[in-house]
């Protein structure tokens, strides 16, 4: 526990350079190191951002879920700030995934958007967390009831995702089949591509964590300034 706390304490020093270097290496890797894909050509290089981004988004939404549970059980507004920060980062990376997917889809599929199962479920995921951010944003920072309401919504949203995936999967499927996570089988990618993908995954995850740290601190500061303002209104010395 104390080790975990120590690691957490170093985030302001460790995360910025690591995230910066990670993203730089990812860009160089994706543009220079990775070989040109035989059929799709250079467009395939979008994968090195597209796939790590959605993993970072999943990570963020997992954090939102856990933080929301803590808000509901412990009534601690610090976790509310964490959930909001993670949700905005998750929405950002889901947006990046959707956007990069569209730019890949235009030359490969011929259209920017198609109502494929995974595209649709990712879009629903995006909508759910945009709604979460809205639900939390309409109330002010220290409104505990609104924080609990948003937490309930985030929990339902997270538990809704399997149903969304199941329903749209039955509805239609077109997205390329998984090439990285295929159970016990080897990933269907050449080693260089897999290596660049791993670097990209590291870089994007670090970037996501760094953005979450910044956003979380901003939310905390907003909470504190709201508390100060409330205290001043009551003529208290805080």
């Amino acid at each position, binding site marked *: 526990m104390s080790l975990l706390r120590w690691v957490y304490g170093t985030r302001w020093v460790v995360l910025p350079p690591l995230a910066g270097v990670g993203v730089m290496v990812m860009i160089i890797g994706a543009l220079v190191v990775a070989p040109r894909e035989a059929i799709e050509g250079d467009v395939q290089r979008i994968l090195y951002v597209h796939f790590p981004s959605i993993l970072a988004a999943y990570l963020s939404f997992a954090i939102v879920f856990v933080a929301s549970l803590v808000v509901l059980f412990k009534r601690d507004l610090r976790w509310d700030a964490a959930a909001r920060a993670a949700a905005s980062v998750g929405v950002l990376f889901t947006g990046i995934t959707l956007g990069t997917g569209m730019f890949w889809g235009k030359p490969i599929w011929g259209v920017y958007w198609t109502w494929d199962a995974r595209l649709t479920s990712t879009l629903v995921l995006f909508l759910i967390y945009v709604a979460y951010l809205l639900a939390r944003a*309409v109330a002010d920072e220290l409104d505990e009831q609104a924080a609990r309401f948003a937490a309930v919504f985030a929990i339902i949203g997270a538990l809704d995702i399997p149903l969304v995936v199941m329903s749209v999967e*039955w509805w239609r499927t077109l997205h390329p089949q998984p090439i990285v996570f295929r159970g016990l089988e080897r990933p269907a990618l050449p080693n260089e591509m897999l290596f660049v993908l791993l670097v990209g995954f590291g870089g994007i995850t670090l970037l996501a964590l760094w953005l979450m740290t910044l956003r979380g601190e901003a939310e905390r500061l907003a909470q504190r300034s709201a508390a100060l303002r409330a205290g001043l209104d009551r003529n208290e010395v805080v």
Partner: protein
Amino acid sequence: MNAGLAVIMKDLRLAWRDRAGWTTAGAFAMIAVLVYSFAFDLAVGDPRPLLPGVLWTTFLFAGVFASGPTVQRETDEGTFDALLLAPVPPTVIYLGKAIANLIALLVIEFAVLAVATILFGIALLTTTIVGIVIVGTAGFVSLTTLLSTLGASTRARGMLLPVLALPLLIPLLLAAVRATGAALDVEPEAAPWSLLLGVFALWSALIATILFPLAVER
């Protein structure tokens, strides 16, 4: 049990007397079906491919829009806080409200089905469709009741509720539309969609019953 019944009776009486809530929702549902039939020209040709979508979007919108105003008054006048002070488990209060909402919405839906049967000349009040409507409505009312009750104290609640509820209800909408389509012979398979509908109803009822007491505890 008695407390639950009391909550149901109180909410139903309110639903009947308060014209801003369910009565308006019923009128809205009727007009929506008319508007759809003009917009998609359902009167000409075979309306069956479009009808499930028309019915379910009407049901969803009517349900989501009505659940806002019904709790708004309760929160404004302090009834909800008073209910929570009563020596009854919050779960009972929640279930009472959800069942009252379910009954009110089902009445509207059956009326819509009856009117649509007359307007389009297609038998819609069959056992299968009534079953699908009951299960589907139970699925979404349990979620909208939870969200509207908890969100009643936040600002912008009227506009916010549809934005919150509709993305969550996409699996339900897909399943309900497909299952209804199968009942009208425009969809090949009914089994997976009826299953999904049932799973969604159980899932949402369970989650809402668990989360409600946690969320309202003071």
